């Protein structure tokens, strides 16, 4: 089993290569078959290896396979080596499983597109890169996957490249994440010079002996890695690219910008948790970033028109929850929320994609409405996803994962009441914007007629995902409802358990408060948007509310701020210096020479007598010098 590890990433890669080499000549059926098949096979291999791993591997064992030595320079010897442990298993499973569902969906969704094969090629390449990211045994190989997913994200956001806006969104996404990546590269350098290796297991094993806790170097390294994570995972302040990234096709948003790539930061921090545990400050910053992000993105989500942008902000906000969990040391809770979020957010995006396509590429929720009866299947699956997102108690998977995070935000040793309060307020907002989205889209009067209904290829993945969005929560239940801990037991092979400061017996109070927050959010929006819509109309007339609304709508003005502080100066300097000021200096030398030349050539009159005069003057000067000296 161990030796088949390479197959997991190799299959998508093979699919990619085949599509690139021969995509133009294959029929669309074959293209879809290649694209979907490679990922599905990869998922099967994953399940096989995963079962084998669960049944046979002992606690600390990892599956490890070295393919070849990448390079060997001095002592620097990174390998192309894969390694599978519980944490990467969860990620690989999510990537391949959800990935194959989304591929199936795309086979229907993209059927009419002329660049069918390019789409699947990019998607396969993405899955390959993502798998490399989570399977890599050293940080450098992970960096390869890390940048690779960035490239695919770029290619897929700009998939419909003929509209320049899509291209700019893609570029923005790439450049902003590159900022984080660069910080991460610096982190890698620091780690290499501190530990003499980039192999993650060795780093984790040696960290405690190399570094004292809370030393500046530990904090700086952790923060550099965090910066990498913030870029990829769209956390404050590098979050601005994700809403724009919705320019890509919906399956792309589902796979890359909801389920997998954007959680790479979560994976990185969980993977390097040993380093973060060595620096309380860094971990506090992780929690702080998560908390602030979830709130900021939540408010923005509340004010969007575009259904995909709502989901995008909600993704940012949910990843904020994961960061919060990581920050308070609730490692397993973060990963659990990642998995659940992957299910329901992929579901929401796919369902939203189905709606958008059905309405003839209409993104604006205010132009939707009344779809409840017209697209019942999409409605019900969307509803399940939305329930999970707003953490509807007991029946939704999202409840179990988010509840865990809320509880740890209070109860963990590193938690605090403020973090808990932000988290629960965030839960309230989440419920609110989810309900708003549901009401605007599915209730009310029909504002746009549907063109055509989604086909089977699109609906089946929705149903499967909806199923998991309910069921997946039950693999990890809080101690007061059944205390079933399958998931965290698995992950505790890799990740430490959370140290609590509060008594577990008080957990029910917090669960109750979480209920209230969720229902409060739903109720509030229900009142304002459904039962008494005139109230919202009245609010809209208020000018201070209006400006607040606009402020939130524009993502708290981060885009404008960055434009003002970074982008515009850069572009301005680049533009004014287009002709290279240094060259002006050399031009100056040239023109001085030229002037001198004109000056001197004016003396070359061709008059012989004048030349002789010059000779005489020269002789006078030379002799004069001789006399004087």
């Amino acid at each position, binding site marked *: 089993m161990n030796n088949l590890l390479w197959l997991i990433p190799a299959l998508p890669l093979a699919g990619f290569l085949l599509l690139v080499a021969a995509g133009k000549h294959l029929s669309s059926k074959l293209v879809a078959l290649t694209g979907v098949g490679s990922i599905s096979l990869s998922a099967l291999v994953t399940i096989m290896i995963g079962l084998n791993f669960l049944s046979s591997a002992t606690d600390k064992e990892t599956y490890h396979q070295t393919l070849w030595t990448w390079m060997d320079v001095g002592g620097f010897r990174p390998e192309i080596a894969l390694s599978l442990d519980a944490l990467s298993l969860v990620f690989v499973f999510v990537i391949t499983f959800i990935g194959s569902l989304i591929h199936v969906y795309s086979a229907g969704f993209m059927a009419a597109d002329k660049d069918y094969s390019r789409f699947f090629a990019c998607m396969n390449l993405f899955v390959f890169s993502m798998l490399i990211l989570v399977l890599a045994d050293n940080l450098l190989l992970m960096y390869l996957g890390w940048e690779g997913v960035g490239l695919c994200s770029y290619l897929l956001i700009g998939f419909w490249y003929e509209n320049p806006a899509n291209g700019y969104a893609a570029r923005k996404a790439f450049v902003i994440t590159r900022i984080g990546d660069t910080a991460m590269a610096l982190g890698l350098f620091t780690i290499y010079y501190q530990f003499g290796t980039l192999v993650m297991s060795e780093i984790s094993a040696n960290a405690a002996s190399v570094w004292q806790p809370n030393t500046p170097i530990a904090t700086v390294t952790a923060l550099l890695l965090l910066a990498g994570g913030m870029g990829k995972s769209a956390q404050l302040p590098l979050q601005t690219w994700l809403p724009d990234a919705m320019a890509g096709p919906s399956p792309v948003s589902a796979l890359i910008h909801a389920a997998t790539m954007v959680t790479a930061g979560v994976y990185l921090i969980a993977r390097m948790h040993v380093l973060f545990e060595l620096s309380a400050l860094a971990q506090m910053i992780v929690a702080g970033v998560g908390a602030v992000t979830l709130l900021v993105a939540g408010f923005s989500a509340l004010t969007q028109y575009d259904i995909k942008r709502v989901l995008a902000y909600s993704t940012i906000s949910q990843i904020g929850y994961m960061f919060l969990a990581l920050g308070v040391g609730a490692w397993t809770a973060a990963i659990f929320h990642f998995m659940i979020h992957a299910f329901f957010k992929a579901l929401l995006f796919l369902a939203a994609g189905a709606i958008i396509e059905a309405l003839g590429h209409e993104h604006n929720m205010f132009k939707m409405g009344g779809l409840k009866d017209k697209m019942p299947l999409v409605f019900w699956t969307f509803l399940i996803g939305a329930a999970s997102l707003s953490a509807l108690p007991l029946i939704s998977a999202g409840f179990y994962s988010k509840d865990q995070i809320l509880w740890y935000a209070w109860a963990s040793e590193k938690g605090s009441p403020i973090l808990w309060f932000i988290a629960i307020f965030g839960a309230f907002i989440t419920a609110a914007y989810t309900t708003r989205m549901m009401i605007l889209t599915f209730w009310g009067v029909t504002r746009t007629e549907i063109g055509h209904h989604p086909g089977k290829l699109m609906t089946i993945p929705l149903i499967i995902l909806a199923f998991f969005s309910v069921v997946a929560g039950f693999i990890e239940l809080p101690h007061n409802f059944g205390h079933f801990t399958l998931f965290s037991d698995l992950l505790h092979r890799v990740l430490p358990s959370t140290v609590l400061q509060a008594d577990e017996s008080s957990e029910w109070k917090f669960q109750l408060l979480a209920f209230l927050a969720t229902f409060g959010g739903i109720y509030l929006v229900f009142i304002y948007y459904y039962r008494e819509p005139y109230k919202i109309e009245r609010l809209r007339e208020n000018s201070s509310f209006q400006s607040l609304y606009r402020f939130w709508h524009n993502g708290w003005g981060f885009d404008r701020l960055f434009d003002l502080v970074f982008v515009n100066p850069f572009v301005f300097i680049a533009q004014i210096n287009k002709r290279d000021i240094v060259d002006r200096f050399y031009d100056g030398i040239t023109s001085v020479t030229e002037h001198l030349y004109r000056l001197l050539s*004016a003396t070359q*009159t061709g*008059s012989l007598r004048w030349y002789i*005069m010059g000779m005489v003057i020269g002789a006078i000067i030379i002799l004069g010098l001789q006399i004087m000296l």
Partner: protein
Amino acid sequence: MSSSVSTEIVMLLAALLFVLGITGVIIRKNIIFMLLSVEIMLNASGLAFVAAGSRWGQPDGQVMFIFILAMAAAEVSIGLALILQIYHQHKSLDIDKLREMNG
């Protein structure tokens, strides 16, 4: 045979001749006069050589004079041939009219 004529005086004479030659070259516009003035200058330097040779009792000064003579002969023959041609082509010996270079 002794005399009160010192090298200084002879050299001064050479210098005077030379300067006169230069003046001639500069102030005259006619090429023939310029050529004559050049001859004066050559003579002046020949005088300096001969005087110096006599001062040291060596024949080298006169040898140099002979070389100057040879050179002067060559120069004059070429120069005069050129003058002939110039006169044929331009119908003038005015050096200022002959300039074709416009700097």
